[in-house]
Structures are given as C-alpha cells and as structure tokens.
C-alpha cells in the first residue's frame, strides 16, 4: 500500500518542480548574490549552508503531501470507499505519512546532491546529517498530519503551515541575519523545530557533538510526542 501511495505522490510532477526545482533555483541565486556581496571566492560552504536552510524550509512545504493525501482519503467522499474495504483505516493514514516521508526525503537528498555535486561542498558527518534531515522530514509530515486531522481541510492546514514556516524561518534568522545578542542567539537555536534541525545539522557538520546531540534529542522527543498525537487523532477520524 505504501508503494501505491508513493507512486501517487511520485506522479505529482508539479510538486517536484516546486519542492526540488524552486529550492535549487533559490540556492543558486542566493549563493551568487552572497558571492557578489561578500566577495568570497570559494562559495562551496556558503552554498552548503544556504542549501541546508532551503532543504529544511522545503521539507516543511513538502508536508502538503501528507495533508492533501489524508484530506483526500478521510475528509472527502473517498472516506466511505476506503472504510468499506477490509483494510483497517489506520493503515491508509500510515501509508499516506510513510510515502510522503519517503518522497520528501528523496527530494531533500536531491537538493543536497545538487549542492555537493554542483558546488563541490563537503558534508562532514554525512550519515548523521542525513539522519537529522530524515528526522526533520518525519517531523514535518507528522505536523502536517496533526494539522489536517485537527483542521479537517487541506487549505486551512496549508495556511497554518505556511505561516509557521515563514515565522519560524524569520525568528531563527534563517532567512536573513538578525542582530547579534543573547536573545537572537537563543532564538536561532531553539525557537522552532526548524531551528533545531538547522542547529543539529550545523552541529554535526562543525563537529560540535554536544550541540548536535541536544538538537537531535529535542527533535526526536518532538517526533515521538507528535507521532502519538497523530495516532490518537487519526483513530478518531479514520475509524
């Protein structure tokens, strides 16, 4: 079933253009601007930093896969068709989330691959960075599932998540640098799960394991908490 749902998401070509094409264009553009402004010759690590920021941001937008899938299956006429089958309805929720996680993570890999291959960026502790990005994807899809299960409409969930992503990116200084003081420093590390993901990835890439493990711990805890919430909410909706 997960394979089928994966195929369904994979055939959303417009989604790939937005979630892969757009960040690639933005990374190229922002790297070029940074190079121009700061007069840096070697932009590979700059491109990597910008790349990670956009990967995290577009993982959030990739949440659309989950909330659109769940809306289609459980908040539209499809609901009765699926509930009339011998398959337990919770499996459809799970298949939606797992397939979205898979596709969204592949998109993240493609963007990271672009930065590595095109700019020659070097990713230290690659496996741990990938693990963190994977947890980031899981979290984004769980937040999406929770939103749609509460709000029951994909358009509302989309609005909430878009606002969340933009606000989270701005206050954590990922869109543009904030003035340096203790408050902004704290916000840049801990203001949102998006900040935690960036903080953890940067920690692993800079070999700051204490910071990275703290971020990873926070992310993992939130994944468990939201995962349990999604389980309870989906039981109410699906059955």
């Amino acid at each position, binding site marked *: 079933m997960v394979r089928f749902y994966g195929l369904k998401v994979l055939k959303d070509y417009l989604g790939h253009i937005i979630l892969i094409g757009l960040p690639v264009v933005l990374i190229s553009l922002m790297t070029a601007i940074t190079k121009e402004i700061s007069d840096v010759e070697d932009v590979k690590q700059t491109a990597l930093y910008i790349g990670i920021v956009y990967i995290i941001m577009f993982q959030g937008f990739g949440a659309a896969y989950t909330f659109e899938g769940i809306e289609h299956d459980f908040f539209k006429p499809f609901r009765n068709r699926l509930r009339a089958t*011998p398959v337990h309805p919770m499996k459809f929720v799970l298949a939606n989330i797992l397939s979205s996680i898979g596709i969204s993570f592949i998109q993240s890999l493609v963007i990271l691959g672009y930065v590595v291959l095109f700019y020659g960026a070097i990713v230290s502790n690659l496996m741990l960075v990938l693990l963190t990005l994977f947890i980031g994807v899981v979290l984004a899809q769980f937040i999406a599932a929770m939103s749609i299960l509460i709000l029951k409409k994909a358009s509302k969930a989309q609005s909430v998540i878009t606002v969340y992503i933009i606000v989270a990116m701005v206050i954590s200084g990922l869109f543009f640098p904030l003035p340096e003081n203790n408050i902004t420093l704290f916000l840049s590390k801990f203001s949102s799960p998006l900040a935690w993901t960036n903080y953890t990835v940067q920690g692993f890439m800079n070999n700051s394991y204490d910071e990275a493990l703290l971020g990873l711990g926070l992310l993992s805890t939130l994944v468990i908490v939201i995962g349990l919430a999604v389980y309870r909410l989906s039981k109410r909706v699906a059955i």
Partner: protein
Amino acid sequence: MSLFVSFVFCYSMGEVIKMIVKLKDVIKRYQGNRLALDYLDLEIQKGEVVGLLGPNGAGKTTAINAIVGLVDVDEGSIEVFGQKQNGLNRDVRKRIGLVTQEVTIYENLSAYENLLFFGKLYGLRKEKLKTRIQEVAKLIGLEDRLHELPKRYSGGMKRRLNIGCSLLHEPELIIMDEPTVGIDPQSRNYILEFVKEIAKNTNTAIIYTSHYIEEVQHISDRVYIIDQGHIIAKGTVNELIEKIKGDQITLIEVKNPLEESIQKIKGISGVKEVAIENNTYQIITEAHVNQLDKILSILTSQTIVNVSNQQANLEDVFLMLTGKTLRDSEV
C-alpha cells in the same frame, strides 16, 4: 426424530444462507434528532437485484452505509450474510462491493493502477489479480484504455471505472449507490446492461439505489420505495403498479402551472393525487371517473399545451403513496 431435527436445521440454515441482508426496525438519528432511518425493514436474498427507490434525502445512502457497517444505528438489527453487522467484521466487508455515489478513483493514476490498488485491498494477488483486472476491464468496456489516466475519461467512463473497482473481488453483495448520476444516456444504458449481465451470470445480490425510476424499473427483481427513512412500499415492479392499476393517469401540459391549482383539482370528486413536473400536471383519478372537463376549466388561464393519458408506472405509485413526484422531493 433426529432425521427430522436435521431436516429442520438444514432447511433453516438454507434460509440463512439464502438471506444476504436483513434489516429489522432500524432507526438512525443524526444530529438534531433528525430521523434518517425510521423503523426501516429490508430483506435481500442471494441472486436478487433489489431497487431502492426514493428522492434525495430519503435515507437511501444511510441505509446502505448501515448495511456496510459505516454508520452505527440507534435501534434495530442488521444482519449481513447471517452475521450481525457491527461495523467491525472485516470478513463481511470482503464479501461486499460498494459503489459510492461520488466517483472515488485516483485521477492521477491510470485505470489499471486504480484497479490494481482496489484489487490488492481486497486481498487479490499476482495472476489472479491480473486476470480479474482484464475480466473487469472487459465488462466495463475499458480494456482498450486501461493505461490512460481517468482525468482524460468522460464522466461515463469514470463512472464505469468507479464500478469496476468494486467488482474485482467478485463480491457476493454489490451495493450501487446512484451509480449513474450526472452521466449521458448512452453511458447510463451501458452501465445498466452490464449490471444486468452481472446479475444474470453470477449469483450476486445487488442493491441498486436511484431516483431514476426507469433504471430501477429496468433492472430490479424487487423494489423498495423509501421516503423519509421509511419503506412505504415493496414488491416487484408489477406488484407495485398493480396497486394503482384501476386508476387513471392524466397528463396536462400547460405553459405556466400554478401551485394553487393543485388544491383546486384535488377538490374535484374522484381525483386521488395531483403533482406538477416539468410544466405538466400529473393527475391520478379513480377509474371510470371522467372529470376532465372540470379539471380543464380550472386550468384554462394557464394555456394548455397538451392533454394525454399514460400507463401507470413506478412514478405514479410514488405519487400515489407520497402525494409528490420524485423530482419534487429533490428540492
């Protein structure tokens, strides 16, 4: 003695097996205490095509959802395949094919992929699944366009695929909830013909709901007429028509029908029911009572276009029983 007991046991088991669906005194209330099903009784036997006829909001879909186990009922009992329907028995669901009122297919996946998905949900695998997909595709007339995306299909083709997805697992009970809504007459005929073919070639029980009388009349062995959650008449089409056999049905088409004329016509002795549909007064009168002059005198100001008599059909039965036409009731 024991032989007698065995005989009685086998006989009663035979009855149970033959009975596919049995609803007894089923009551379902929605929010605001609105009655959706009001002491609904319904029985369907193996190999039978049963038409469930009623206007929108009559309770057809709720009745279907109750049979499939998608809604809990407040009172009464529902048995499907001799087992109590409590919504949790997945083996029962495996034996039912539900065709939903809305087209519920994945539009960005090909018809083949849709059939593959639904076949797998019902436990079909490998060669059996592939064979069934080909058989069903042939039945629904999509074998040549199986690998196209449904978003390129006409409304009728989508409806056929919608039905096909429910037939793959060879269900013993097929429930079709208004399967022809919003499609052209040609596609409608195609669907009706293959539903008849399924009924003829398999021993499947079929529940077919519609508010199109001609469809129900065409394919059903028996008909239940439902209104406001209650069965108001049941029987074969002929048995139902027999109820008003002695009556006379007159159709008077006018340019500007007036609601107040209905009461005036009803006041004429011998007139049993009156309704307006498509600018036409449908008037049921007792046989051998000729009151046409009096009726026409009421309608003179409305520019009479045509006057005719018609053979009684299920629409007239519905009008007789409820005092309204099916189309009126939709509003």
